[in-house]
């Protein structure tokens, strides 16, 4: 039982915990300060080495944790600040969820650092890139390790900053800078919600430290579905919407593909965007007390999954397709959270991190090979030139489509089974989204790797497989995408759900708070088999359709500027959501700023400031005439003033 999380007394363990985020930070400092001066080999070695060290320490922490009876503990480093009754400690909490995220973040982070060493080798901002990546690792580790909401917020803002810096990494391109600003501003909207949520938590529970908040939440009576719980969870979810790109704040993520591809893989697919899910999961005690919010989250997640999947059907940019599939998969994860299938959600986070990082890195390898071409209409037949990339990309695609025995199958199947139990209609819609996912992913695969090469002759002569620093991470991730699903075998195959059992203790308090909501799924084996079969059949049908369309008939998406059917046009233009936001929010705000500038700033503020200046000048011009140089006049004024003062003194006051 997770009664009260005990602080740890072991100094060495505390130091190890501190080293996990500190090492990438040291890497950031050295690479950042030595930018341009350090040799490239050293920069890459430092950047990857620090993250590898963090990963190894995380593994050690994990082994130590499980061998000592899986007891969560808190590492109190120092008291960060105290305001009134609010005490914020700079402390880490190590429990099952933290360890899982640690392993995922540092493990995939390390692979992507290695990949970046190859991918960015021709870039002049090599040192800057690794410095930012290391800073990102530091922030992300703070986010998952912090033992209170304020620490999480610090990490939350840190990853947002790094995301901004890395999207706009090639800051000579104005469009990239705009994409970076868009991501930053949209995240800021979410952050405001998150911050208000933290304030409300403090007001309600008198603390922001996880163990205290969750303990008092589970003990207070009459909280279930009360207004304050709904407000807290909704506000926190607004933060998650921004960070994890859910409707209505998802449009920044596809634009974020302006950054270098390893960044898209690390930040905008595998780790940062799952911070929202981590946060909801961390606050599971609060969320089970607000079923209304849960229902809302499920609906938002499902809507996002469907919307992004439909947009993905018609995109022609290899990274944009992957971006929309990320948004769609994040929608699935929130759908799982909404139906209180917490473990399924984190399971999908984990497998998604494997295969989506793999897909992005594969896409990066393709882009690298075809001289920075990103349009799949100008690719094709690449499997001849890029065999390793092709095979790993195929594994990733199979995994995301949910074909057994790849990782995505187990997590998505488990997730959909929980949704089925909760609501049949949601399940049907989720299946539809899953169908579209398989279709557009295979469309991408077929258009890129099958058929004839459609690019220019110059590109064809440059085609080459990527260096080993790029292919090795691909192979490792491909292996993980293949076997990663076995940590959560469904009930029909195995008695023990390894991941579910491991994570079970973090829901203890939630069970006590609202046990009825967390009852495990009771699905008989027949239903489970049927559900599995249905989702596999649906995916296979989608793959066959894609095969017939893009390999048999060799359809190539229409070039830019052709007239499309109305629906196709609508999807191709992403439902005009960017344009709607532009009209509804951006332009009115711009117009208002212009109006405020012209009226408030130029007329009122400048008027007051300049008015004072003019007043002083004018009065000076008049008053200087009194300095006539005539002594008699001065004396007279002096005497008259003294008389006046005396008069006032004696007769008035």
């Amino acid at each position: 039982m997770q009664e009260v999380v005990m602080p740890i007394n072991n100094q060495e363990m505390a130091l190890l915990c501190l080293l996990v985020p500190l090492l990438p930070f040291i890497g950031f400092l050295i690479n950042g300060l030595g930018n341009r001066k350090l040799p490239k080999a050293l920069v890459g070695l430092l950047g990857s080495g620090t993250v590898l060290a963090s990963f190894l320490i995380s593994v050690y922490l994990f082994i130590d944790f499980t061998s000592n009876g899986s007891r969560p503990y808190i590492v109190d480093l120092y008291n960060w600040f105290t305001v009134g009754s609010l005490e914020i400690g700079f402390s880490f909490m190590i429990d099952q969820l933290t360890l899982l995220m640690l392993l995922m973040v540092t493990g995939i982070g390390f692979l992507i650092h290695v990949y970046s060493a190859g991918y960015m080798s021709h870039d002049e901002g090599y040192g800057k890139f690794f410095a930012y990546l290391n800073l990102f690792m530091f922030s992300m580790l703070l986010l998952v390790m912090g033992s209170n909401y304020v620490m999480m917020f610090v990490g939350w803002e840190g990853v947002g900053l790094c995301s901004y810096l890395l999207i706009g990494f090639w800051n000579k391109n104005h469009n990239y800078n705009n994409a970076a600003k868009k991501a930053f501003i949209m995240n800021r909207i979410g952050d405001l919600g998150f911050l208000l949520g933290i304030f409300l938590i403090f007001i309600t529970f008198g603390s922001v430290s996880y163990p205290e908040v969750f303990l008092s939440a589970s003990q207070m009576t009459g909280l279930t579905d009360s207004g304050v719980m709904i407000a807290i969870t909704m506000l926190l979810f607004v933060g998650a919407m921004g960070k994890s790109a859910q409707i209505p704040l998802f449009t920044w993520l596809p634009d974020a593909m302006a950054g270098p591809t390893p960044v898209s893989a690390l930040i905008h697919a595998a780790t940062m965007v799952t911070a929202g899910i981590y946060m909801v999961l961390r606050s599971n005690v609060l969320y089970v007390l607000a079923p209304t919010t849960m229902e809302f989250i499920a609906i938002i997640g499902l809507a996002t999954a469907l919307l992004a999947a439909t947009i993905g059907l018609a995109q022609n940019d290899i990274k944009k397709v992957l971006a929309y599939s990320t948004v769609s998969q994040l929608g699935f994860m929130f759908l799982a959270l909404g139906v209180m299938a917490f473990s399924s959600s984190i399971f999908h986070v984990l497998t998604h991190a494997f295969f989506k990082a793999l897909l992005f890195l594969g896409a990066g390898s393709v882009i690298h090979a075809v001289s920075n071409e990103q349009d799949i209409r100008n690719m094709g037949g690449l499997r001849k030139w890029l065999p390793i990339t092709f095979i790993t990309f195929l594994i990733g695609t199979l995994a995301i489509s949910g074909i057994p025995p790849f990782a995505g199958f187990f997590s998505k199947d488990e997730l959909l089974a929980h949704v089925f139990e909760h609501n049949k209609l949601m399940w049907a819609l989720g299946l539809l989204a899953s169908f579209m996912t398989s279709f557009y992913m295979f469309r991408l695969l077929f258009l890129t790797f099958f058929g004839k090469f459609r690019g220019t002759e110059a590109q064809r002569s440059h085609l080459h497989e990527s260096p080993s620093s790029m292919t090795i991470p691909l192979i490792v991730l491909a292996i993980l995408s293949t076997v990663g699903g076995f940590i959560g075998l469904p009930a029909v195959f195995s008695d023990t759900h390894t991941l579910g059992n491991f994570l079970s203790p973090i829901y203890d308090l939630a069970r006590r708070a609202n046990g009825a909501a967390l009852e495990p799924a009771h699905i008989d084996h027949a239903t489970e088999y049927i559900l599995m079969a249905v989702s596999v059949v649906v995916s296979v049908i989608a793959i066959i359709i894609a095969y017939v369309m893009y390999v048999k008939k060799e359809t190539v998406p229409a070039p830019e500027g052709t007239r499309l059917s109305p629906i196709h046009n609508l999807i191709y233009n992403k439902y005009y959501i960017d344009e709607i936001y532009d009209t509804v929010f951006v332009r009115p705000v711009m117009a208002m700023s212009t109006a405020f500038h012209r009226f408030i700033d130029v007329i009122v503020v400048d008027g007051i400031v300049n008015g004072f200046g003019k007043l002083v000048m004018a009065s000076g011009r008049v008053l200087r005439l009194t300095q006539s140089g005539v002594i008699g006049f001065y004396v007279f004024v002096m005497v008259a003033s003294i008389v006046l003062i005396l008069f006032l003194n004696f007769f008035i006051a």
Partner: protein
Amino acid sequence: MNQMPEVIRTIPLEFYLYFSTALFAIGVIGVLTRRNAIVIFMCVELMLNAVNVLMVALSSYRSDPNGQIFVFFIMAVAAAEVTVGLAIIVMIYRNLRTTDVQLLNYLKW
């Protein structure tokens, strides 16, 4: 022989007040109306001495020697001021051949 404070107290205090007020007023009016720098200077001395008289009178009526100490200071400062002031006036006269203050209006905007 009577002591000085007692001699002073033979005249009522009001008379000292009237006298020094009159003396001070004459001084002020002189400064305001006269144009000759030397006369203005003399009027300033009148004002200083009006204050001196009042100080001495009040000091003896209230049996407080502080007033008389101030009188000594004022006399010393006035003497110093006279030397400097007269020297300036002499220099002005040498340069301008006049001591009319109305003509000394060069120091202005």
